[in-house]
């Protein structure tokens, strides 16, 4: 499996390098779907220039990256392209190794379950064969944003969690949270998985993990303070993420909503929107406590859809997971609709942007409508996968062809 992976990596790197050299890179790096005020590369350069001038990069409204990014790119500003390529490669390789490991475990569990005769007899066709269980992540996009680095950190977190390494998992999670607050929701999934792997008493485990996580987070925050010598990165980075002052259009749900609402209700709606991101953790982790990796996938999807400044980079991270659940295809109900809507929206985004900004004949509502549609399609995709997953689990426990008590065919309904 390593050979096709390396070949694919080489191809992806080549495509990316070619795209970067061509004029596409300039065009793409300006698009609002690809870069957000949090992750735009131009803003990183601006922040570095401000630092050179002696002005704090956080004194303006342009730079919202964490100090560690400043530190990293202070040395790597000339090699930005290679850094991002490397981050993408790391993401791909980490996801590949994580999924390989996960597949091995699933297969092993499946084997035990088969031997223990726990599956009903007519479910054999649902069993996954090793031949199906290969996975090659595909992520190539020539954007110039630090989203790649965030994705790399999350991928490394997933890898370390799947491998069962508690310390590394805590460290990478704290790094991911330090970059943007939302990966905090992944901690529940990590805890569930690690408890499965190495069972221990629940609270002791939680305490250990929390200790490691908080410790590394403190180290990061302290390091940032020492690097810059002042605390004003906290309101600029985290305050920015949470309070959403910048209403630059993006593919998220926040911008136009907050542009059109009454100031009186701003705080209320802000809280509602932000809680929305974190809220799904609890019910999802209760439902999916046996399947933490799927929980990670769901959480990533929820974060990418509901975060304050999403980009296609975040979406690509959870879409990269889809081939892992390829065996769920037979249970997906809306896949055609979803794919059509997603394709249509991707095509309409630049069109309506041009109509709005350059031609002046549309307005923000047009673009927001497409944004909404895009997000609805994503939600539909995610919930479809959720349904398919649960349905398969149900079938594995209760048999594939369900019969009612009177023998007639029954249908499953997700309640």
């Amino acid at each position: 499996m390593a050979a096709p992976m390396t070949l694919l990596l080489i191809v992806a790197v080549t495509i990316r390098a070619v795209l970067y050299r061509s004029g596409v890179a300039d065009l793409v790096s300006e698009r609002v779907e690809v870069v957000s005020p949090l992750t735009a590369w131009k803003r990183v350069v601006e922040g570095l220039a401000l630092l050179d001038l002696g002005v704090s990069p956080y004194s303006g409204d342009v730079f919202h990256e964490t100090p560690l990014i400043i530190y990293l790119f202070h040395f790597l500003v000339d090699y930005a392209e290679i850094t991002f390529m490397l981050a993408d490669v790391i993401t791909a390789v980490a996801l590949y190794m994580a999924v390989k490991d996960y597949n091995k475990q699933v297969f092993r569990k499946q084997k035990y379950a088969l031997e223990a005769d726990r599956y009903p007899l007519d479910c054999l066709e649902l069993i996954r064969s090793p031949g199906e269980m290969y996975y090659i992540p595909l992520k190539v996009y020539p954007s110039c944003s630090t989203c790649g680095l965030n994705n790399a950190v999350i991928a490394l977190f997933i890898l370390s969690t799947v491998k069962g390494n508690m310390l590394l998992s805590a460290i990478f999670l704290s790094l991911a949270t330090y970059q943007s607050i939302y990966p905090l929701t992944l901690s529940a999934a990590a805890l569930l998985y690690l408890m499965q792997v190495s069972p221990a008493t629940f609270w002791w485990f939680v305490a250990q993990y929390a200790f490691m996580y908080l410790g590394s987070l403190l180290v990061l925050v302290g390091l940032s303070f020492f690097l810059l010598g002042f605390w004003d990165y906290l309101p600029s980075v985290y305050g920015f993420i949470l309070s959403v002052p910048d209403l630059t259009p993006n593919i998220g749900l926040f911008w136009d909503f907050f542009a059109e609402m009454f100031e009186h209700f701003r705080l209320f709606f802000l809280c509602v929107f932000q809680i929305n991101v974190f809220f799904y953790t609890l019910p999802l982790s209760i439902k999916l406590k046996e399947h933490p990796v799927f929980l990670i996938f769901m959480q990533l999807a929820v974060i990418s859809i509901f975060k304050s400044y999403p980009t296609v980079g975040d979406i690509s991270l959870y879409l990269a997971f889809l081939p892992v659940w390829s065996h769920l295809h037979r249970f997906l109900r809306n896949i055609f609709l979803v794919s059509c809507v997603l394709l249509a929206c991707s095509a309409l985004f630049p069109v309506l942007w041009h109509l709005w900004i350059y031609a002046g004949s549309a307005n923000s509502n047009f673009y927001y409508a497409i944004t909404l549609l895009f997000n609805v399609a994503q939600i539909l995709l995610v919930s479809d996968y959720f349904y398919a997953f649960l349905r398969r689990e149900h079938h594995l426990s209760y048999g594939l062809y369900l019969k009612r008590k009177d023998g007639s065919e029954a249908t499953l309904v997700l309640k």
Partner: protein
Amino acid sequence: MAAHRCSRSALLLVLCSLCLFSIAESQETTPAGDHRATGVDNPQSVTGSTEQMAEQPTVVEEEEEEEEDRRWEATRDEVETENTSAPDTSAPTFEVHSSVPKPKDDFQEELVIRPLHSGDIYASFQFRTLWETDFTTGNKVSHYRLFPKSLGQVISKFSVRELHISFTQGYWRTMQWGQPFLPSPPGAELWVWFQDSVTDVDETWKELTNVLSGIFCASLNFIDSTNTVQPSASFKPLGIGNVTDHRFLRYATLPREIVCTENLTPWKKLLPCGSKAGLAVLLKSEKLFHSSFHSQAVHIRPVCKDWQCKTKSWELRQTLNVVFDLHTPGQGKQEWSLFKMFSRTLTEACPLASSSKIYVDITDDPQGEQFEVSPATHLLSQAMVLGDRRTFSLYDLTQQITFGTVRSLNLHIRWKSSEGYIHYQPSKDRVRPHLLEMLVQLPPNSVTEVTVQFERALLKWTEYTPDPNHGFYVGSSVISSLVPSIVAMDTNSTREQPLFSSL
């Protein structure tokens, strides 16, 4: 020249040249011997025409640079007796009683570096060999020391009185760079004054061009009657010359001629130290031809040895002018160094050179405000260059102290950043605007552009103005020039005509 003298003076000239030869061959020159020789020459120089005297001032003017240097240096350095033909207040020929035989030839190398207004840098090398000898008579000169043999043979074989050849690549931009020390046209240019003894000038010219094209590895053999002229008024002999009969002048130019390493290498070979020591080590072709302007030339002419012009010396000047354009736009003027320009540093002077100096032109910046030169030097010299009095920082390579402890000299010229002060206060949305202040030194006759990239922010619906289709109005920027406050606060002048006083 000799043909115009009467036969008696010609005989006397032959006699004195024989004396000179014997002196040179025996290598035991004493000043007394010189005096005898010059004593014989005296009546001839007195009977010389007025034109000869007229030649003197031009010679003097051009030598004045070295002369003034020596005068200046005399107050700081030990006086080194230098064997030049320039008139000197302390004429060495009369006071040196050294036991070492004074050689008849002398080699000096100089480099002038001048930072130009446009950010480019102009480097001008001059390697000058003076040789008190006579090529024109039938005596074959066989012992060559500093003077290159190939050129000596050319002079004697083709009875050349003066030879000026230059190879130039690029175009001298006078508007941006000012005046060059020695103007030269693009391509190859050759003009020669022949001796009066030449009978068939055209034939000699043809042979000369072919020989020169072999010496310099250039295609000067393309010079023929189609591109040769005989100017009647534009050219005068630059060396000592009696009568200017323009029949003996030929001028040709090959504008298509390209200068490359093949031309530079034989040019460097003519130098006494070659390219192994002294200033010539800096002449690396990969850097020299990577320049905006490159011109190398050879000038041969007879000059007077001293003020009385009793003896004639031959002067060979090899000059190389190069303008480097290492200026990257948008970054301001950069830092220059010998290493950056020539990819070499200097480690020693040419041992055969009697003087080896580097001059850095600091006339535009006497206080060291615009740029600083390091390593610093205390030696200064002044000279009249093209009618302009200019001040130079001087580096004497014959002094070991110039090289310092590292035993190598790498001159740095650092431009003090003209945009020294930038004050930028970025805006906070809905709180405060952007403020950008820049202290800029605008070079004369130039256009300065300031560009700012910006991003648009989406407004909330309450922030729209009633007529948003107007767009946004951007305020004007303020340009203020700094004047001393004493001028601005002078209220005496505002007593009468207050309006005009305040304008």
